[in-house]
C-alpha cells in the first residue's frame, strides 16, 4: 500500500501569528504535515505548544497567517466563503467540552448539520437515528445534553460530527475531560469509526496514552514547531526530540537532577521484554546497576518497555554491560546528563 499517493490533508509552510498587544504571539511556525486517507494521525504536545491552533487551521476556523492547507488537493484558503462552508461538511470536529447545543435534544443536535446541508426532515431523522445506534445511544434520542453524562455527550457530539458523512474527523482533546474508563470507550469508538467507516481521524492531545492506544502516526509539536513526525512505534522506540523523550518517558525528568557518569536507556522492542534481561545482564557482567525508572506499555498489541539504568563508575564494567546488550541485540541509547533541552 503506497500511502503517499493518498494524502487527504496537507499543510504547507503554515504559520500563525496572533496580533496581540503588546507583543504578537507566534502560535505556529513553518508547519509542514501530510496526513494520509484512512489513518489515525495524532498531534501531541504540551499545553501552549500550538496544537489547538493547528487543528483549527485544518478546517480554517483559524486563518493561517501564511502557508496553505490542502484538503483532497484543494487549497482551502483560496476557496470563496460559500465553498469553504460547504467543504466543512466533509470535515467533522469534536471538542474537549463536547459543545452540544444545550437547548436541543440529542437527536436534534445530530440533525443540526443536516439542516445546514438542507437535507429533508424525514431523511435527517432517519440518519440521526442510525448515528445514535452507531454511537451506542439508541434510547437517548430525546435526552438533552444536561441529562447526559460526559461520555454520552461526547458520543452525541461524535454522531453529530459524522452526520454529513465527512471523510475527516478532527478531535480537539476529545477525551481530556473524561475519566479513564470513559476515555477508553470513546477511543474504542473512534477506532471503530476509523476502521468501519474509513474516516480519517486527526486528533490532538497532551496524553501519550491516547496516542499509543489508537494512533497510526504521530507528530510532536513543541513551542509552535513540529519537532518530530513518524509512526507511533518509532516514536516510542527512538524518540528523537527532547520533548518526545519527555512525553514517552516521563521518568526521564529524574535524570536532570542526578549526577553520575553514565546512564543507558534500554528499549524493549516487544520481543525481549519478557526475558529477565536486567537480571541476566547483572549476573553475566558481574556489575551492579541502578534502575532510575522503568515503564512498559502495550502498543498495538505488543509489549514495549523502557528502562533507565545508571551504570557503575568502573569503565570496564560499563564496557561489559554495553557489549552484553549489543550481543543480545537489545536497543539502548546513551543518556547524557543535563541534556534535556
Amino acid at each position, binding site marked *: 500500500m503506497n500511502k503517499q499517493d493518498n494524502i487527504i490533508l496537507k499543510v504547507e509552510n503554515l504559520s500563525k501569528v496572533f496580533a496581540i498587544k503588546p507583543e504578537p504571539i507566534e502560535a505556529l511556525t513553518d508547519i509542514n504535515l501530510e496526513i494520509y486517507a484512512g489513518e489515525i494521525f495524532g498531534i501531541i504536545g504540551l499545553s501552549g505548544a500550538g496544537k489547538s491552533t493547528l487543528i483549527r487551521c485544518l478546517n480554517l476556523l483559524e486563518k493561517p497567517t501564511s502557508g496553505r492547507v490542502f484538503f483532497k488537493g484543494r487549497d482551502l484558503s483560496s476557496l470563496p466563503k460559500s465553498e469553504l462552508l460547504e467543504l466543512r461538511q466533509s470535515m*467533522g470536529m469534536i471538542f474537549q467540552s463536547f459543545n452540544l447545543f444545550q*437547548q436541543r435534544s440529542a437527536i436534534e443536535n445530530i440533525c443540526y448539520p443536516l439542516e445546514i446541508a438542507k437535507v429533508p426532515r424525514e431523511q435527517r431523522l432517519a440518519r440521526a437515528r442510525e448515528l445514535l445506534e452507531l454511537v451506542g445511544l439508541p434510547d437517548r434520542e430525546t435526552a*438533552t445534553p444536561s441529562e447526559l453524562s460526559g461520555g454520552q455527550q461526547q458520543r452525541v457530539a461524535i454522531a453529530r460530527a459524522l452526520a454529513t458523512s465527512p471523510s475527516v474527523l478532527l478531535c480537539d482533546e476529545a477525551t481530556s475531560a473524561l475519566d479513564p474508563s470513559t476515555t477508553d470507550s470513546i477511543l474504542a469508538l473512534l477506532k471503530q469509526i476509523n476502521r468501519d467507516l474509513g474516516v480519517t481521524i486527526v486528533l490532538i492531545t497532551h496524553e501519550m496514552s491516547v496516542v499509543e492506544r489508537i494512533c497510526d502516526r504521530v507528530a510532536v509539536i513543541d513551542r509552535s514547531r513540529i519537532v518530530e513526525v513518524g509512526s507511533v512505534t518509532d516514536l516510542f522506540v527512538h524518540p528523537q526530540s527532547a520533548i518526545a523523550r519527555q512525553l514517552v518517558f516521563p521518568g526521564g525528568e529524574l535524570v536532570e537532577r542526578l549526577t553520575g557518569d553514565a546512564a543507558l536507556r534500554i528499549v524493549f522492542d516487544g520481543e525481549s521484554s519478557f526475558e529477565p534481561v536486567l537480571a541476566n545482564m547483572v549476573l553475566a557482567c558481574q556489575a551492579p546497576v541502578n534502575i532510575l525508572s522503568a515503564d512498559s506499555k502495550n502498543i498495538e498489541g505488543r509489549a514495549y518497555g523502557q528502562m533507565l539504568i545508571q551504570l557503575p563508575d568502573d569503565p570496564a564494567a560499563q564496557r561489559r554491560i554495553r557489549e552484553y546488550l549489543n550481543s543480545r541485540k537489545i536497543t539502548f541509547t546513551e543518556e547524557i546528563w543535563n541534556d534535556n533541552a
Partner: protein
Amino acid sequence: MTTLELLQLLGQGLLETLYMTLISTFLSYLIGLPLGMILTVTDKKGLRPNRAINLALGFVINMLRSVPFLILAVAIIPFTRWIVGTSIGSTATIVPLVVAAAPYVARMIESSLREVDAGVIEAARSMGSSDRQVLFKVMVPEAKPSLLVGATIATTTILGYSAMAGFMAGGGLGTIAINYGYHRYNTEIMLYTVALLIIVVQVMQEAGLHLTRRLDRRRRAE
C-alpha cells in the same frame, strides 16, 4: 365616590397601564432586538466585527439610556406630538416609553447573546454554518432562557416607567395615583393604585419566570 365608581376608575387605569406596557414592550423589542443583534455581531469578538458601527450604535444607546425617563419624555414632546398628534394620554406615552426602553432592550439582548458558549458557536461554525445560521439557529435559541428573563425584566421596568408618566398626564394607574394621591391628598386611592401595580408586577414576574423554566431545556442537577 362610590365603590362602583372607584372600581371603574381603577379598572380603566389598569387597562390603560397594561395597554401602554404591552404595546411599548412589543415595539421596544421590535427595535431593540435587531439593535442588540447588531451590537453582538459587530463586537470585537462577534461574527462580523465592525468597530465603527459598534461604537456609533453603542454611543447612541448609552446616550439615550443615561437620560432619566421623565426628562426624556418631556424633551421629546414635539416628536411625540408629531407621531401621535398629542402628548397626553396612554397612546402618547407609548412614544417616550419605546424611545427609553428600546436601547435598554438592545443592551439586554446583547448581554444574553454574549452569554452563549463560544465553544458551541465554534462547533456550529465547524459544521459549515454561515454567520446568519450561527446567529438565528444557534445563538438566539441557545440564549432563549436568558432572553426570556430579560423580557420579563424589561416588561416590569416599562410598567414602572409608564407609572412615572402619570406626572405628565400619561394615563393609566400612574396618572390616577398622581391626580388623587398627590394633587388631592387622597391617600386611599393612591394606595389602591400602588397595590394594583405591585400585583401586576408580581404576576408578570412569576409568569415570565414560569415560562422561562418551562422552555429552558437544561435540567439542573437535582
